[in-house]
């Protein structure tokens, strides 16, 4: 029995409505408890901000990121955020580290932990390549992991939707999650991945997918219905159509509206829209491109069925990677950049392209502003998850820098002062004076995630929750984030302590221990007769179209590190 008493912590835990109050936290055997014995190890956290461990609910950290590493080896040396990037020699405790946007697996674990983050959700697992994702998960130390499985251009999904077989569709989703050991349903540019199989794309919610006679809107609604029928812990997680195109804010709002009629089966949103920054563009071309954030934020403020994350841009080099194959090809052609592509048979597409966000480019400057506008114009932080869609908008190691943008108008003004007049004309950020406090920041980096993924044991410091805790050397009330943003950045860049399951993994910004994290996956129960009927259909897919056998498709138990199976009961 291991016990720890964290004394005099300045606790900020929005799940309990605790806003920077001085209190003690007790830990026993990896969980937060009411009290501990006198034998408990005492950690003095006086004067230190204490939150639940950070939870990155949308990051590309295993699987596709390997294509990014492979094609861009120059990233290994990049050390733009000293202490959290670049080449680091091995030590007795840590493996060798490299990279900035695409760090090696070990660096991902260490660096998230240094930021006080303890859980990550990989944003895109192709079913056929899921084994690879889990192989990388195994080599990411410390963090708990989960991933979202891709269903948005899947032949079987589209056929069941076209043929109006919602029960079999739900059974297929349950099977797909099991096959890939995924946590939730990801939909990327619905239908667009299949169109990209022919070098084409879909243009919006009602543009039929070639050869499959379904529309993106039907795919979204079909998958949402299946998601709720299976009572999955997360809602569908949607990357909207038309990503990266001027004028796409209309598609985004249209997509959000579509979900007003979806009734969530659990106490959570019925829709999560991801990296909305890339989908909140107004204008009709790159010439008259401007922010669409006010329109999107306006809609979100009046909606209570959804959450979203930012996809905040960080200036400097980034590595874009997405299942949205056509977008990456377009990026590569427009920017004259190298282009990797990996279409997945019967399932989806994907692409990887490096790019550089420059404050001198008016488009990039406006993109930067849009992410912040969304965070600041949406009134309720519980609807917002902070992300950079790492490393699409920029590497996660820049989170502390991004926090200062959210917390300080002065800091924003400093960045904005470098923008061209044209950029300023196309954004509304300079007129926004809202500054987030630590409580709101905790909501966007921990509490929203816990709620939206139905993970009550994560993202809060309630008794019974996992003892994943971040302690930062900064005291709210004594530091004014709106002016002393350098202190904010420093504190969040290297936690005074990070606890993972009650174990000290980071102390004074350095790695102390590197335990293995857990892997969460969802096993949704489906009636046997429906499952059997569905299996017949996919057996045919494997016999005729797949190039691997069904038996070799399923991710085997041995690939899951400390698996946590979340069971749900499908309603049929």
């Amino acid at each position, binding site marked *: 029995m291991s016990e720890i008493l964290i004394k005099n912590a300045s606790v900020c835990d929005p799940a309990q409505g605790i806003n920077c109050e001085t209190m003690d936290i007790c830990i026993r055997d990896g969980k937060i408890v009411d009290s501990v014995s006198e034998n408990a190890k005492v950690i003095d956290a006086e004067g230190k901000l204490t939150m639940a461990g950070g939870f990155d609910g949308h990051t590309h950290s*295993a699987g596709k*990121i*390997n*294509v990014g*590493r*492979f*094609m*861009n*080896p120059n*990233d*290994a040396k990049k050390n733009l955020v000293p202490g959290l990037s670049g*080449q*680091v*020699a*091995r030590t007795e405790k840590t*493996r*060798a580290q*490299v*990279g900035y946007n*695409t*760090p*090696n*697996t*070990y660096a991902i674990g260490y660096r998230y932990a240094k930021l006080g983050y303890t859980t990550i959700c990989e944003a895109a697992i192709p079913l*056929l*390549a899921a*084994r*690879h994702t889990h*192989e990388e998960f195994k*080599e990411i130390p410390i963090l708990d992991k989960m991933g979202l499985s891709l269903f948005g251009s899947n*032949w079987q999904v589209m056929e069941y939707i076209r043929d109006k077989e919602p029960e079999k569709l739900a059974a297929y989703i349950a099977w797909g999650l099991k096959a890939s050991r995924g946590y939730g349903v990801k939909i990327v540019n619905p239908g667009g991945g299949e169109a*990209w*199989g*022919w*070098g084409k794309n879909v243009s919006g919610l009602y543009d039929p997918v070639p*050869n499959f006679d379904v529309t993106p809107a039907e795919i979204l609604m079909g998958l949402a219905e299946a998601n709720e029928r299976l009572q999955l812990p997360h809602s569908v997680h949607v990357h909207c159509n038309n990503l990266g195109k001027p004028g796409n804010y209309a598609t985004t709002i249209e997509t959000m509206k579509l979900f007003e009629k979806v009734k969530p089966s659990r106490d959570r949103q019925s829709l999560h829209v991801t990296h909305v920054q890339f989908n909140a563009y107004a204008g009709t071309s790159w010439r008259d491109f401007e922010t669409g954030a006010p329109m999107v934020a306006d809609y979100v403020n009046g909606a209570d069925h959804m959450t979203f994350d930012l996809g905040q841009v960080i200036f400097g080099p980034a590595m874009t990677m997405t299942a949205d194959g056509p977008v990456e*090809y377009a990026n*590569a*052609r427009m920017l004259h*950049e*190298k*282009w*990797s*592509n*990996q*279409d*997945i*048979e*019967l399932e989806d597409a994907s692409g*990887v*392209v490096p790019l550089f966000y420059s404050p001198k480019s008016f488009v990039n400057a406006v993109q930067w502003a849009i992410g912040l506008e969304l965070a600041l114009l949406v009134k309720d932080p519980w609807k917002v998850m902070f992300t950079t869609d790492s490393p699409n908008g920029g590497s996660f190691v820049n989170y502390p820098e991004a926090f200062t943008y959210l917390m300080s108008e002065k800091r924003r003004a400093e960045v904005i002062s470098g923008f061209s007049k044209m950029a300023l004309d196309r954004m509304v950020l300079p007129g926004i004076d809202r500054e987030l406090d630590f409580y709101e920041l905790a909501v966007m980096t921990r509490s929203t995630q816990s709620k939206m993924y139905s993970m009550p044991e994560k993202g809060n410091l309630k008794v019974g929750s996992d003892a994943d805790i971040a302690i930062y050397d900064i005291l709210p009330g004594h530091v004014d984030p709106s002016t002393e943003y350098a202190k904010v950045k420093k504190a969040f860049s290297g936690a005074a302590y990070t606890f993972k399951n009650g174990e000290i993994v980071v102390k004074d910004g350095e790695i102390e221990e590197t335990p293995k994290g857990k892997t969460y996956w969802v096993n949704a129960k489906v009636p046997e007769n429906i499952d059997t009927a569905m299996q017949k259909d996919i057996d045919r897919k494997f016999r*005729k*179209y*797949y*190039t*691997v*056998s069904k*038996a*070799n498709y399923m991710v*085997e138990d041995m690939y899951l590190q400390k698996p946590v199976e979340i069971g749900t009961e499908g309603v049929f």
Partner: protein
Amino acid sequence: MPVIKDAVCSLCGSLCDDITVTVENNKITKIENACILGHSKFVGMFEHDRIETPMIRKDGELVPVPYEEAIEAAAKILVNSKRTLSYGWCSTSCEAVSGAIQLAEETGSIIDSTANVCHGPSALAAQEKGSPSATLGEIKNRADVIIFWGCNPVHAHPRHMVRYSSFSKGLFTEKGRKGRTMIVVDVRKTDTAKLADRYVEIEQGSDLLLVTALRSIVNGHEDVIPKTVAGVPKAEVVELAETLKNAKFVCIFFGMGVTQSRSKYKNGDAMSSLISDLNQHTKAVMIGMRGHYNVTGFGQVATWETGFPMAIDFARGYPYYNPGETGANDLLVREEPDAAIIAAADAGAHFPQKAVRHLARIPVIQIDPYANPTTEIADVVIPAAVVGIEAEGTAYRMDAISLRMKKLIDSKFKTDEEIVKDLTEKVREMKRGA
């Protein structure tokens, strides 16, 4: 008698996963679905010369020793070495590769794979221009124009054309071979070329010229093309470009004829650009015909664990990558390594003479199931189980799809994974002692 279905064949990069194997008394007695190469690997287990026991070279002769003694001798070599080259790791599992990388990291070694003499230039090409690819099922289900460029699957990947490419049938390719145009570009009329609708014979080492000419035509600059390109008349080049442009889905499979001939990585670089240009007109992808069944896996594991796919130097404590400087042959030709581990690959047979001569001068540890030319210059020989037959593990197909290889029969031999682990433990023990 146990019949094992859906076994994965651990011979080539096609990684066929539909093999049925019958096992009787721990012997494989029947193999269904495998090609001649795969079949001979499964049965060859019992016919070829296995290394029967660990050996150490004493007075010029390899003499049998207990396993522990071999591990100790190998560890001693590593501990005394200032510059170890760890090479191969491609006919083994990803789990073994992972262990080998950790060992290289802890001993400050350089680790490289067989890509050094194979598809290494494809990696460099991807680092220049990217890798526009797809899984093999995309080709099976969609491709109506398939090019085999500088590769000969009839002999190197015998089931490739049936399972994944020319002869396969899929959702949008119901007619199979009849509905497809198959083109071979090569310097000689191979057995694959004999099956093609069109064979384009080019002059040795002129691949880059032809790819560049195709790009020019695809991009509307037919006028700049000279009368012949790479020994091919202009009209034929134009026709080829038109075939590609007018296809519904193009795949170029490329082999070592592209990666190891003149212009090396520039060939792949240009081909990647050609694929990008073609996508302005149609859909096109390219896939490297990887040889060793898990050379792709080495690249994948190395990339996620070190950031780099090959030629990784840990001398600085962190991974350093500079092919041309840190490749296995770069080092050997410079006579830099003072010890080497050669595992699951045969440097003795495949490296240039100068490199092999240096290997012969330094202590070499070999880990392999079979005796091969490397054995002749090895000082410590540790026999291993055959992965995919006697040991399980992960392998990556040429299109970067990973599969779980099964253990089909029991073996007295340790697995590569276990050997690396034991070796690492012994090295740690010796270092602690020192």
